[in-house]
């Protein structure tokens, strides 16, 4: 049984499967980005999506909260289909945090201001409440001393930690990460991965598109390998990294120089 903040009526539990992708297809003109993907993400799981560039993993992640529209298929969140109705989509987005490759912090706001914006605009928190929440989250990502800094005066790693705190400020059920360390200098990748690791240890449900195989190996509960818009293999990290069943997976891993 999962801990939830809300007292649920007797016999009612949030579904075990948080996100379900059912035959998701996405086509850009002739190009098929996703060729019918079926996948389940369970509560508390860390699912890593790996595979070569252009294999569709980021597209699938962006379909999860409706930033990308699907050509066909369905995504369910807590059993609810992602709707065409923008109001329902907004409600679902509030419960899914997203972290982008290029951070996308708001340059006209301080680190603290970035984190306060969601709760104040969307959840209607007062400035006081939002500030308290933002300060706690900055402490959680180890950046209390940078509260007043603008993004331009933060390193890449620090910006991405603020971006994670910004997403967490909405108290989401799920966190989506779209190549969160791809735009970082090698020396700051570790600090971001550490924050993500702690988040996973706290039981957050996470879907992570990543090229960090060490992270996937250590943190993921479930690894999904993409190629040409399809899932070519999925399973626990031990299987994927130590005993891959398909040539596609082996080719991809050996291409990365992965030697277990």
């Amino acid at each position, binding site marked *: 049984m999962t801990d939830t903040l809300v007292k649920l009526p007797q016999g009612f539990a949030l579904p075990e499967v948080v996100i379900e992708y059912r035959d998701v297809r996405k086509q850009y003109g002739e190009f098929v980005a996703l060729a019918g993907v079926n996948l389940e993400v369970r509560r508390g799981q860390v699912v890593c999506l790996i595979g070569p560039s252009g294999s569709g993993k980021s597209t699938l992640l962006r379909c999860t909260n409706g*930033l990308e529209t699907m050509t066909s298929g369905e995504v369910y969140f807590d059993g609810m289909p992602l709707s065409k109705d923008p109001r329902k989509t907004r409600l679902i*987005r*509030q419960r899914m945090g997203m972290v*982008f490759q290029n951070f*996308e912090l*708001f340059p*006209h706001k301080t680190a603290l201001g970035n984190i306060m914006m969601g709760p104040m605009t*969307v959840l209607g928190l007062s400035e006081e409440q939002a500030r308290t929440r933002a300060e706690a989250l900055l402490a959680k990502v180890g950046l209390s001393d940078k509260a007043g800094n603008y993004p331009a005066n933060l390193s890449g790693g620090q910006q991405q930690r603020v971006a994670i705190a910004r997403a967490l400020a909405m108290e989401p059920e799920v966190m989506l990460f779209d190549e969160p360390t791809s735009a970082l200098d090698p020396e700051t990748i570790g600090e971001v991965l550490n924050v993500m690791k702690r988040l996973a240890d706290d039981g957050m449900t996470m879907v992570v598109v990543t090229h960090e195989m060490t992270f996937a190996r250590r943190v993921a509960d479930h690894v999904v390998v993409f190629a040409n818009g399809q899932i070519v293999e999925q399973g626990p990290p031990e299987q994927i990294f130590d005993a891959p069943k398909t040539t596609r997976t082996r080719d991809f891993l050996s291409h990365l120089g992965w030697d277990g």
Partner: protein
Amino acid sequence: MTFDWSIIWQSMGALWQGALVTIGLTVLTMVLAVPLGIVVALLRDSRLKPVSALATAYVELMRNVPIILVVYWAFYVLPILTGVGFSPFLTGLVALVLNNTAYNSETFRSGIRSIRKGQTEAGLALGMSEGEAFRKIVLPQAWRRVLPILATTWVTLFKDTSLVSVIAVGDLAHTALQIRSQSFRVIEMLTAMAAIYWLLGYPQAKIVDWIHRKYGVTE
């Protein structure tokens, strides 16, 4: 040829009144044409084809027609269209706002487009509506980027307000030219007019330079 510069001192009160009208006209035009410019910029990028086509037609018309023509047009056509007699000041204001809104909409459109899509997506991902993301994230950033261009537009507008003198708005140009034709002190009045425009315009131009230095895009 003899000069009688005393005409300037004698007309000081009237010229001051005219200068106030010019300044008032500039300020009011900008106060109206900036928000309207944002609205037209949004209409141009509207998903509804007829709406964007109409907005585009308006902008292209205003950008390619001399302001003085718009001033005359407003003077003769506005009363017919509305059935109400407009004061010269209001007529001049309408003409200048029509013209400036078009220019400002182009300015804002380029500013809005310069903000990358990921910024809006970051807002949407937090659960904001498109409108909230625009107001809280895109507009404040676009605003800083277009401020130098708006400042330049301001100074141009300040001088262009003189065009409304053709419909007898009591602005600085009209007042000075009026005194000129009553006193026949042509050189004196034109010199005074130039001096006053320059004295008022120069500090504005300096402020614009400062805005360019402070907010000019350097990334």
